[in-house]
């Protein structure tokens, strides 16, 4: 436990001791929110001749909210989790290259601690960004759903936490035995776009073609997005929320256990 905390602290220190890095971590979600969030003004499609009543109804039926920015902004929480954790694996390659990993491997610290510290670090950093996204979204006019309670934001954090642990474990696994970046980098690139588009980040999965809907309905991002929206912009549906959280919880448990197992087995080459 002590070794685990020390390794996590090492990563965190590198982050918060570097003002520029910290600033970028703050700026990045803000920029996304302002530019991407406000760019796709789908509500405007129904401008002009369409009566506002009908437009609102169409929006509500498709997106579950009358305001596309709110739909998008909440989707961005899961997206930011994906984007901030996708490089988790590279730090282990870096450690291997610099010889730090070998030194740590020669100490009695548990192999699980080595990967879990990286997972926790990525998760903490990502959760910090989620907080900023939430703040920015509220400031830019997020329309909360009926029955919204500020405590629900803790629920959002829980979802982000689960998703980040799952993603960082996944991306860490890809790099466990790598000595070079190229292959894991290509794999990450291959995975990120489909993960993002075959989900309900930008668009409801219900309106996608059948086969794509099937893909989206296995995608953890879809569950995370739905859960986040249940907590913020939808009228909370307990059944759906329970389904989302169960899926995410089980998946996260499975992936992180697998990464610990693989670390024990394969960190030493």
């Amino acid at each position: 436990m002590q070794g685990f905390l020390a390794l996590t602290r090492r990563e965190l220190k590198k982050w918060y001791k570097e003002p520029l890095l910290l600033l970028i971590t703050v700026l990045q979600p803000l920029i996304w929110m302002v530019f991407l969030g406000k760019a796709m003004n789908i509500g405007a499609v129904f401008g002009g001749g369409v009566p506002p009543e009908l437009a609102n109804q169409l929006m509500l039926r498709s997106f579950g909210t009358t305001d596309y920015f709110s739909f998008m902004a909440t989707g961005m929480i899961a997206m930011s989790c994906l984007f901030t954790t996708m490089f988790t694996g590279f730090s282990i390659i870096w450690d291997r290259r610099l010889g730090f990993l070998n030194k740590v491997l020669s100490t009695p610290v548990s192999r699980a601690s080595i990967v879990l510290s990286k997972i926790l670090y990525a998760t903490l950093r990502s959760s910090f960004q989620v907080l900023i996204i939430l703040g920015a979204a509220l400031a830019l006019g997020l329309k909360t759903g009926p029955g919204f309670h500020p405590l629900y934001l803790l629920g959002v954090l829980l979802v982000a936490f689960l998703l980040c642990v799952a993603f960082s474990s996944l991306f860490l696994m890809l790099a466990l035995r790598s000595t070079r970046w190229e292959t894991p980098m290509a794999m990450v690139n291959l995975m990120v776009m489909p993960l993002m588009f075959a989900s309900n980040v930008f668009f409801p999965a219900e309106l996608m073609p059948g086969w794509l809907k099937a893909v989206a309905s296995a995608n953890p991002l879809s569950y995370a997005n739905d859960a986040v929206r249940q907590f913020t912009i939808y009228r909370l549906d307990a059944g759906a929320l329970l389904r989302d959280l169960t899926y995410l919880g089980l998946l996260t448990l499975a992936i992180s256990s697998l990464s610990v197992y693989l670390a024990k087995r394969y960190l030493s080459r």
Partner: protein
Amino acid sequence: MREEIIRAVELTKVFNGLRAVDRVTFSVREREIFGFLGPNGAGKTTTINMLTTVLKPTSGRAEVCGYDVVREPEKVRRSIGVVPQEYTADEDLTGYENVMLCADLYGLPKEEGRRRALELLSLVQLEPFKDKRVETYSGGMRRRLELACGLINRPKVLFLDEPTLGLDVQTRASIWEHIRSLRGRFGMTIFLTTHYLEEADQLCDRIAIIDHGRIVEEGSPSELKDSLGGDLLTLECEGDGVEEILRAVEGVKEVRREGGEYRVKVGRGETVAPLLLRLLTDRGVTVKRLSLTKPTLDEVYLERTGRSLRDQEESPEQGIRQRVTLRRARS
């Protein structure tokens, strides 16, 4: 006879068909400084990595402090300290934070860790710089910091991989001094690898010369030098029957005449030379010049590993690490 603290039997590591370490058998006794000497890519680091449980041997076995490196890695890790070839200290952290990180990796209680960290930092003379970021350290300071990290758990055996790679002469000498004093102070056994002959000669009680993954020679530095056939006396003299006189002297192994010189191989040059001189003078031979050459480890090394240049057969990964180390050593 002191106890054997490291024992390797037929230790082998194969990487993608390449036998990096090939049936290596050796043992190190308690409180000994034992050196693995060999060119780059000879298998030195791979051997250290197996002994320190970072790599799993392909076959063969090894024990460190009585624990098997494959079956009881936890126990091995608790009893050893490792100073890798690379500078592994985190550049963004201070020297003190780095040593404390190591203390935590060994699970030392906070107070104890803090006490030892400060003690070790002052031992390696980094006390005044302990709160500076490692980024600002020189090569020698980094190496000393690595030493402090490797000692935090009071190891019985300390592994040093190329402890002076890339350092200048003064710094190297001071690192040697530190290593010697460490053994005296903590009574540790030290296993080191080096490709600097001088380092092996100066520092080690016993040396194994390793090449292409195999041990080609083993012994104390003086034994290895003796194995070349002892010292060389070169004489320039005027007179008759010199060769016969020389051959008759006890301790003379070989006499050759090259140009106007006699080259005489003897066991102990400093005791044989006066004897030779007196005998020759008694027989009316005038000795105009006499010189004594002691064999160097270089000659042993070159004789055993061959004189051809090596294109290093090392992994790209190791190549990069070594370049990074060299660059930082010079910063």
